[in-house]
């Protein structure tokens, strides 16, 4: 852990993430205004003064909406990637362990899912199911299952050839025990490193879907939704697009930096690849 934070990339990334997470958690206490409270008199106030980052077309405080919007981004990213890790990881592990034709078939299916453009897949799933938080999580998790199946499978293929797995079978251990007690702990770190990189992708996808108008429904504050509103008023109030854009960038960059640092730590040879 200490070694990790000595890497400047990881450190900066971690700081960015911590800032956003704190903002999201403390939003009810530190947000200066109610994120959905409209105020006709304060419409389109430029940044500075009473409203640090200005107000939008309905007179809502941009800073407060960014703080509350962080919650949606983080909830969607964490839950969708956690479910993708559970489902995809299990598929990949079992598939690799079984091997043979079953594995070949499952991986073919995963390759098909992998080759489908993830934004389009997410877009259509949300469009068909309706723009609800649960459906967003489902759609993003769906796009991330295949990569995690691949990530989990690769090390299982080599681990199952190791003698300690054969020893387990010779000792009469069940396949479930071999897989979950002996193989699983050896792949956890690899999967988790990819987890933080994929969380960055999930944040981006959620923001993109919200920008297209398929995010959590207004008036709930989401970063992508704020960009969408801001884009419509881009001539009058550029700050409406700039600040949420910076927020998205901070979180995605932070997660990517942490993921990169973690990967360097687990595999020094691939430093920065």
């Amino acid at each position, binding site marked *: 852990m200490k070694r990790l934070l000595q890497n400047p990339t990881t450190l900066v990334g971690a700081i960015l993430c911590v800032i956003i997470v704190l903002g999201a958690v403390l939003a009810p206490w530190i947000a200066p205004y109610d994120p959905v409270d409209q105020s006709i008199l304060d419409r389109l106030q430029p940044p500075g003064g009473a409203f640090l980052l200005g107000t939008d077309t309905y007179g809502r405080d941009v800073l407060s909406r960014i703080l509350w919007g962080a919650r949606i981004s983080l909830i969607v990213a964490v839950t969708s990637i956690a479910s993708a890790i559970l489902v995809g990881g299990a598929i990949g592990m079992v598939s690799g362990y079984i091997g043979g034709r079953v594995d070949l078939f499952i991986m073919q299916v995963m390759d098909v899912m992998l080759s489908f453009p993830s934004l389009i897949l997410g877009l259509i799933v949300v469009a068909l199911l309706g723009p609800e938080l649960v459906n967003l999580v489902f759609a993003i998790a769906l796009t991330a299952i295949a990569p995690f199946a691949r990530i989990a499978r690769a090390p299982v293929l080599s681990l199952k050839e190791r003698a300690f797995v054969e020893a387990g079978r*010779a*000792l009469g251990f069940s396949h479930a025990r071999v897989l979950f007690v002996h193989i699983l*702990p050896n792949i956890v770190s690899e999967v988790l490193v990819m987890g933080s990189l994929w969380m960055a992708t999930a944040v981006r996808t959620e923001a993109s879907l919200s920008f297209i108008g398929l995010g959590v429904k207004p008036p709930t504050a989401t970063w992508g939704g704020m960009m969408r509103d801001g884009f419509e008023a881009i001539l009058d109030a550029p700050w409406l697009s700039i600040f949420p854009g910076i927020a998205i960038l901070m979180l995605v960059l932070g997660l990517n930096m942490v993921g990169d640092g973690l990967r360097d730590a687990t595999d020094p040879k691939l430093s920065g690849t």
Partner: protein
Amino acid sequence: MTAPILEVAGLRKYFTVVKGFPRPVKTIVRAVDGVDFSVGASEAFGIVGESGCGKSTAARAVLRLIEPDAGTIRFAGQDVRAASGAALIALRRRMQIVFQDPYSSLNPRRTIGQTLTEPLSVHGVARGRAAKDQAAALLEEVGLPAAALGRYPHEFSGGQRQRIGVARALALKPELIVADEPVSALDVSVQAQVLLLLKDLQARRGLAFVFVSHDLSVIRWFCARVAVMYLGRIVEQGPVARVFSAPRHPYTRMLRDASPIPDPGKRGVLPRVVGEIPSAAAPPPGCHFHPRCPRASEICRTTYPAWDEGDGHGTACHHPHVD
């Protein structure tokens, strides 16, 4: 030989490889092609041969770590191939394996204590404190301190790890141990220590061994009887002293002459090694050994020689050396 604890007859394992486009070619690799042998209780039985001859496959098939295609395996009178479920698990307690590579044979994420107590708790032999005490006793038996229980495999040397592998094999008090090249991956100085440990355990626990190795001197020192394998079949079998002092099969003779002899004075003409070992996917017709054999005649090219049991020192050769 005492009453056999393990009897293997007609053991066969073929691997199929499909390769090629547009016409896929199916290749059958005859890794083990009809192998018979038996091991007495408390006896050390060796299987020797060049790499690729199928000796490891045969040893693993006995434990059903590789599912054999045909043949019978009887352990203490019980049919191993027919066993399943609880019966197979019960059989596995009585037959264990020690691996060649001490680095991949231990799970890097589990402490030595976890590795040694796990089989005890899975089989309901002992749990908690009792299991830990047993694990400590096992470590002591293989010459390691009980303090090693809390440590991870990477903290140990190759020889120490091999001792831990042996302790794990002993945990369930087996009667037979399959040792697959147990010392080939170790430094020569460490090899002797591990061999002494195994010999000592054999005497103390009355263990039977199936000892697989390519190293004749190790087999000669450790085993009472030996089978020589070539391309999936046993070509010669008998008491170690007789097989190596007066080999009947030309292949055994070639192997013996190629292995270093401790006394330089005894060294005569440099060993003559003819040719490469052919692939088990395309063994030569007739006697598999004939392309490399100095005594090969016309019949060797067409007919596989029948097994001649002799006086307990048998061989499969048309032109055996006679003592």
